[in-house]
């Protein structure tokens, strides 16, 4: 017995506890903390200037993330734009390239351009989904909303509409696949050009990533163990359902 009887009780142990026989190397004060790593993976990227729904996976969740990635589900963004200037990186914080007038722009003109964008993207969607639209199979898939490119493709916009319009500001809702946030900023820039003016992107906010919505998302004030556990539980069913649907 190593009798280490000292006047001051150790901060780690409880006072009144008899000194342990044998080695003290097992105490945390000697070895350090027990767990040092937690496997966390991230879902679809969100660049520094963007905000919104960002999905993370813990442990087994990482495998589910990969499976969800292979489902090629759409993402939904709220994209803010400002008419009147163009910058080198298409955002409102970039270097100014030109300034233009915008009083001639109306909501109708904007919506016409959006319809054109939707049309061209619809063609791309069908092309990359490898489906012959004249078949019964294609019809059935379209009804179920399952027409999606199941492999790599360039960014595709499946739906785009104007939420708000108050010159020079405007706000769009964009449903898309295989996108990057920078691609969406470029879309804003090109809309400006199509309307014979110029535009920069002021905000890119993801409101939905596949099955995950803003309501499922945890704000910073809820980044604690309990809320995270609850969030995982709440989404479990719809993740399973979606995976089954696609793999079927």
């Amino acid at each position, binding site marked *: 017995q190593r009798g280490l009887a000292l006047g001051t009780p150790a*901060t780690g142990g409880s006072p009144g506890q008899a000194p342990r026989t044998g080695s003290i190397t097992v105490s945390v*004060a*000697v070895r350090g903390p027990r767990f040092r790593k937690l496997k966390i993976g991230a879902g679809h990227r969100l660049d520094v200037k963007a905000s919104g729904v960002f999905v993370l996976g813990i442990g087994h969740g990482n495998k589910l993330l990969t499976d969800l990635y292979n489902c090629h589900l759409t993402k939904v963004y709220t994209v803010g734009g400002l008419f009147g200037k163009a910058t080198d990186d298409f955002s409102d914080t970039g270097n100014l390239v030109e300034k233009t007038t915008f009083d001639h722009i109306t909501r109708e003109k904007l919506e016409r351009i959006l319809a054109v964008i939707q049309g061209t993207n619809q063609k791309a969607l069908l092309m990359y989904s490898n489906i012959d639209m004249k078949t019964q199979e294609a019809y059935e898939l379209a009804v179920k909303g399952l027409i999606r490119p199941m492999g790599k493709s360039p960014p595709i916009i499946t739906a785009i509409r104007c939420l708000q319009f108050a010159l020079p500001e405007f706000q769009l809702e964009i449903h898309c696949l295989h996108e990057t946030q920078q691609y969406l900023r470029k879309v804003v820039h090109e809309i400006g050009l199509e309307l014979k003016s110029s535009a920069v992107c002021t905000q890119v*906010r993801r409101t939905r990533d596949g099955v995950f919505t803003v309501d499922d998302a945890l704000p910073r004030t809820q980044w604690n163990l309990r809320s995270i556990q609850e969030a995982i539980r709440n989404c479990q069913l719809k993740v399973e359902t979606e995976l089954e649907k696609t793999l079927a």
Partner: protein
Amino acid sequence: FSDWDDIPPSSALEVISEEEAVQIIAEPLLPIQSSTLRDYVDHSETLAKLVHLGVDLSQVEKRQKAGQLLLTLDFEKDVKKILLFLKDVGVEDNQLGPFLTKNPYILGEDLEALETRVAYLKSKKFGKSEIAQMVSRAPYLLLFSVERLDNRLGFFKNELGLSVKKTKDLVIRLPRLLTGKIEPVKENLQVCQIELGFQRNEIQQIVCKTPKILTASKKRLKQTFDYLHNIMGIPHHMLTRFPQVFNSKLLRIRERHMFLAFLGRAQYDPAQPSYISLDQLVSLPDEVFCTEIAKASMQDFENFLKTL
């Protein structure tokens, strides 16, 4: 054989009986070299007693040569008198462990040198409890020579133009100023004066209220000031009145300001009605801020945050 010296020593290869063999205790040898104190802790009285005091050896062994130092010290001869010295200075018993974890080197210091330094602080009229506080909060303090401590105190007094008393109050509140690097402090003062545009007397007031501004990151300081002054429109004299706002996270300031602006309540001018002080803006916890200042619910705030 008539004399003990005549008995030849037994040969190592001599055959012995089973009973004798069983009685030989052959413990594994201590490693001569190791990267962790774990291997020695069961055989060193010094290490074992330090663990019982609350020293975290897993942290100590990460510091340069600290593990080596501890192994060469004898508890009764070397360590005990330093521990008694620290208790005498006023370090609390339950603080000894954390203190030594941060500064194990003090156990190898010359006791007389340590006592001279404490005597110096007393000669400068620092009170006993003040010295205890400074030593506990800046564990490396007593490793510094009297000359170095004196130079440091002189630096702060001259650079900031403070009185002797105010300089002492400053280092009592943030004793890290005496032990940390001096260049970053000089740079922060330059930033406050040249880039942020504060007057010398404003800087004095700010530093005495929130000494941490001298050790804060320059980038953070500039970003926070930029948002407060250029976006929220807070003038210099208001920032001098509430310098604690510089210690706050920029994200918190931004989110709360944007929420107030959204509700039409972002009013920071005391001359106008419904004035919200910067102090209220940053130091209240979320729930109180929402109900008292923003006059909204936590849920409203969280919903708003999700639209950013």
